[in-house]
């Protein structure tokens, strides 16, 4: 469904991605793992057309999306929950959910505010609060809800649970499990290796701007050496 092929990308002064390659299949739950500063967020920015790709190609559902305008990539069917959540602080929770919502005609069960609230009941009391008034956990739930309201075929979460309280974390994980059961394709970046081994299908380890290992949850679970070397577990 998503295929990233030998992508290179740079910030003004330095190259950050060196031949980044991986893919996500339909209904698959895939992770990008790796320590801070290894290029995971940069990869997401390149996929989303926020940072220009200098070489390599990106395909989504057989269609090339390399360096398309950001909005076209989102419209192609990718929903982003960005690092740092980036909800709109000056919009209410309800407005955050509906401002960018789209409901493609070919979607069987489209996301609605009601369904988002089923997923995250806490947002119900917050609907008329400004986004900026929410706690970090609530903001993350809102960011997930906001992305789902675009009815994406691939959901990307960058640092899905970073900085959140354990209780909120488990709520986010159980949400992702639910989505997974509904056959939602998911690409997650997070540091909770143990949880990810439980709920994800496949993993890629990113080191200095490219993939150094890929494999299934079982393979990652058994490879303690790998976990220690690249993930600091």
């Amino acid at each position, binding site marked *: 469904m998503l295929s990233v092929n030998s992508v290179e990308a740079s910030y003004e002064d330095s190259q950050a991605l060196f031949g980044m390659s991986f893919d996500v299949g339909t209904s698959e739950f895939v992770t990008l793992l790796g320590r801070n500063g290894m290029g995971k967020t940069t990869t997401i920015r390149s996929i989303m057309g926020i940072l220009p790709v200098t070489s390599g190609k990106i395909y989504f559902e057989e269609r090339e999306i390399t360096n398309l305008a*950001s909005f076209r990539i989102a419209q192609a069917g990718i929903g982003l929950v960005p690092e740092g959540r980036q909800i709109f602080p000056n919009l209410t929770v309800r407005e955050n959910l509906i401002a*960018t919502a789209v409901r493609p005609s070919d979607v069987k069960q489209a996301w609605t505010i009601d369904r988002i609230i089923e997923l995250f009941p806490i947002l119900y009391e917050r609907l008329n609060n400004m986004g900026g008034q929410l706690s970090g956990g609530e903001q993350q739930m809102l960011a997930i809800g906001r992305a789902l309201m675009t009815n994406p075929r691939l959901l990307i979460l960058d640092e899905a649970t970073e900085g959140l309280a354990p209780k909120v974390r488990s709520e986010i994980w159980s949400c992702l499990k639910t989505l997974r059961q509904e056959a939602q394709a998911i690409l997650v970046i997070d540091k909770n290796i143990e949880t990810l081994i439980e709920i994800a299908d496949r993993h890629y380890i990113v080191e200095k701007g490219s993939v150094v290992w890929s494999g299934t949850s079982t393979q990652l679970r058994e490879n303690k050496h790998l976990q220690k070397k690249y993930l600091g577990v």
Partner: protein
Amino acid sequence: MEISFVVEQLLNGFQLGVLLFLLAAGLTLVFGIMDLVNLAHGSIYMIGAFFAATMTLALDSFILGIVIALPMTLILGMVLEVLALRTLYARGHMDQVLATFGLILFLNELVRIIWGPAGLAIPLPLFLDGSVSLPLGIVYPTYRMFIILIGIIVALGLYYLVSKTRLGMLIRAGASNRTMVGALGINIRFLFTAVFGLGAMLAGLAGMLIAPINQAQIGMGEDILILAFVVIVIGGIGSIRGAFIAAILAGVIDTMGRAFLDVLLLALLPANAAEAAGPALSSMLIYFLMAVVLIFRPQGLFPARNG
């Protein structure tokens, strides 16, 4: 001093405030969302007046003239955005000031070529030309009441647009984080063009409304543009509500200052000093207001970016 005179001046202040609001609304949206300092906003006000004058004379109807001139200004704004202003978003404010100042010179010259150096007067239709009787025995020009009414309707409409509609949500979201708006599937370029066109149309409307009083004239946009910038700074950049309140405040304070400051000074100073100081001080009043507001609220009355 008669109460009717005070009320009349108050209404004049409202009327100036309403015009300032129409001008400031577009300016504050463009500055707030696109982070673009557009000095040429006043030129659009001028061209709106010329469009309305030409259309009124051609169609022999002021109302029809305005109805046709509005979409013309909308299109002018969108074309300007695509051709000239879009390239400035990524630049610093100083580049924007220089480039849009150049645009002022260019547009002034263009108007001179098309319409000639003399101003164009617009005749008012009969039903707007007279006066209305208000309570307290006040007789007030119908047309000035008309301007106030239009301004209030536009303000309510804009408030609805920005606070209740999807477009308004996107405008506010774009003001806080445009990358994210794009990454969620919204064509932010087109959104900018639309917002710019809307702002241009409102500035044009202000020019159209003032033209029957002051004529459509080359350079008419420059003085009022400075006031409009003062208004958006007082109101909080990006905020429609702030622009409205600040515009009315500025209009009323400016008008009242001009009407009454010399009377007030006469009570404090010798006659010749008061007469000399009155006009000078009254034209400074709104800058004084801006300074006071900025001391207590550096972001303006209603900062848009944090709610």
